[in-house]
């Protein structure tokens, strides 16, 4: 059957399976991706079916994983790398930022680096330190990288395959607290472009722009606001680099108000970039300053405080009210 209800994690698993089947050059690499199927089981069963040559358990060395993936890509492979948790990507950050991002330009476009780096990111699962971070801005800031994040199973399924087909390096952020959420996937659909934003919920009073784990919170906020007679439009940005500013602009020209929501710290975050660009593009349409809701300028707190740290329904609604009050 083409349409199935799948948890986001399973959709990713099916997507990787499809990619391995379709293109013999696709490889999966990472710590514990083989027998264990990854700590979140995203690669479950893939080594069994595609063998140790295609689904490669690596040594415990992130710089090594990304660095060798670059070499494999230079040799014509399409490596899909798994970083176990957000906070463990930094040993590989050097390879990603100084090498992966820049090689295509340095070679005057003569070589391609089709490497996908999958990173489960964000909080809300009660984990210990380094397991709940949202470092997307650190990657989006780097020219040469593309950065995307699905918020539901259908996007998880399609965006991952599109990322793998892309000739550019893609940092693929997976909202780990949504891994177990189920939604519909049509495996025979024709997917939209990888970097296009989507209107997840139409509305007319204020626009909420979010991606990854916060899309669900924003949809809940829109539903709650509707009960109070406010019409909230929710955008699922899907891509943080590039950002589909046209879709945001269209929405803001309609609503006149924009609130950007993400888990990552607000300071120097993607919300800042969106606020600045949209202010430029929509200066005469805005009824209120662009507001941002996100994490604080503090280390991600211990699990017992994450409810306070993470933007929840109340903080999003509060921002909606503040925007409407201008």
């Amino acid at each position: 059957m083409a349409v199935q209800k799948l948890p986001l994690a399973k959709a990713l698993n099916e997507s990787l399976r499809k990619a391995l089947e379709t293109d013999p050059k696709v490889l999966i690499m990472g710590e514990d991706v083989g027998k264990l199927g990854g700590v979140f089981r995203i690669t479950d069963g893939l080594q069994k079916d595609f063998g140790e040559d295609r689904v490669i358990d690596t040594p415990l060395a992130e710089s090594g994983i990304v660095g060798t993936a670059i070499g494999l890509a230079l040799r014509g492979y399409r490596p899909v790398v798994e970083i176990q948790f957000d906070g463990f990507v930094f040993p590989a950050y050097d390879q990603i930022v100084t090498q992966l991002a820049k090689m295509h330009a340095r070679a005057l476009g003569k070589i391609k680096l089709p490497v996908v780096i999958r990173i489960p990111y964000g909080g809300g699962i009660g984990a210990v330190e380094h397991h709940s971070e949202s470092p997307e801005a650190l990657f989006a800031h780097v020219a040469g990288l593309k950065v995307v994040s699905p918020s539901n199973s259908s996007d998880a399924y399609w965006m991952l395959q599109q990322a793998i087909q892309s000739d550019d390096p893609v940092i693929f952020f997976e909202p780990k607290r949504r891994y177990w959420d189920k939604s519909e996937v049509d495996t025979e659909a024709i997917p939209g472009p990888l970097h296009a934003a989507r209107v997840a919920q139409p509305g007319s009073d204020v626009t909420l722009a979010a991606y990854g784990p916060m899309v669900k919170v924003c949809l809940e906020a829109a539903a709650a606001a509707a009960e109070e007679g406010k019409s909230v439009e929710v955008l699922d940005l899907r891509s943080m680099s590039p950002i589909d500013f046209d879709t945001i602009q269209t929405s803001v020209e309609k609503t006149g108000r924009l609130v950007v929501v993400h888990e990552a710290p607000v300071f120097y975050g993607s919300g800042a970039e969106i606020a600045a660009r949209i202010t430029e593009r929509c200066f005469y349409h805005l009824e209120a300053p662009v507001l941002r809701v996100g994490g604080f300028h503090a280390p991600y707190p211990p699990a017992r405080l994450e409810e306070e740290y993470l933007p929840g329904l109340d903080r999003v609604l509060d921002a909606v009210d503040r925007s409407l009050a201008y």
Partner: protein
Amino acid sequence: MTVESTAAARKPRRASKRASATKKPQSSEPQLVQLLTPEGERVQHPEYDIDLSADELRGLYRDMVLTRRFDSEATALQRQGELGLWASLLGQEAAQIGSGRALRDDDYVFPTYREHGVAWCRGVDPTNLLGMFRGVNHGGWDPTTNNFHLYTIVIGSQTLHATGYAMGVAKDGADSAVIAYFGDGASSQGDVAESFTFSAVYNAPVVFFCQNNQWAISEPTERQTRVPLYQRAQGFGFPGVRVDGNDVLACLAVTRSALERARRGEGPTLVEAFTYRMGAHTTSDDPTKYRHDDERAAWEAKDPILRLRTYLEAEGHADEAFFTSLDEESDVLAKRVREAVRAMPDPEDMAMFDHVYADGHSLVDEERAQFAAYQASFAEEGN
């Protein structure tokens, strides 16, 4: 050359090479330094012998028993939902107590996240170790009180900190030593290789104590290295030694010797404690997905605590009363830990903004004030 072997030789070179790369390394199994056999028999070693009083032997036994009990209590607390996660040290008591008891008070320890036994030896209150696993803090103790650094979750990072600290010790002309703990998986990290380089070229007084518990989550040691880990040291220019990690006496003797060498200004040593992780990697892990029960059974026969008990009893170093009172002491410890964890308060909301900077930061102050006002708005509404 026979016909068959010629045929075999004509197989694609690459394929046959690849096949051999998935097999275990061919090198003969290295000798372990051992002073107490799995059967509890005392054996001599030409280089690392050790002479301990009955009192000291009972002390090591007590440390291991209490540490194991603490560990099993923490595992139970995780199952009861009191802790978010627990990394058990079950099976690694001898490696930790042996090395931990080799340390002097002025030595400095850089642990990973499983060194509960070493923490015990340093006098860190075991309940302090539980805060980060409960999710109320990211550390929970002052590292300078017991010269026991905070647990480090990012694999391998602490080996460089240990090396730098040891470089500082040497600069100060002190005769303290530093010890860095890490796992066999960590040995693959660039940071660990870099710490070997730095410690060697600066002749830093650091002991690298690798607990090779055979697994890095689901990856066996063969996925990290093609040579026995202790042999790595040679390429960096310092000695490496493999010790029976389930033999507390050998771990004590070998670590003591490595620490003394560091104190004498002779530089780093790599100690590979050959041991086994009896349980899951953490309480979130499911080892049935990647390893067989019979492997665990084989290692159970090498249990570090049982073998010392056998020895103590055979030599008449401990009587029934000792074991009974130790059981009682374990119960008391377990109860204390249980109560302390349950009573551990959640942090105040505003604690997030504490200690972000030593000198303060205007943005943190602003966000703290905004968040406080936001929280207070709920109280005003009477929610």
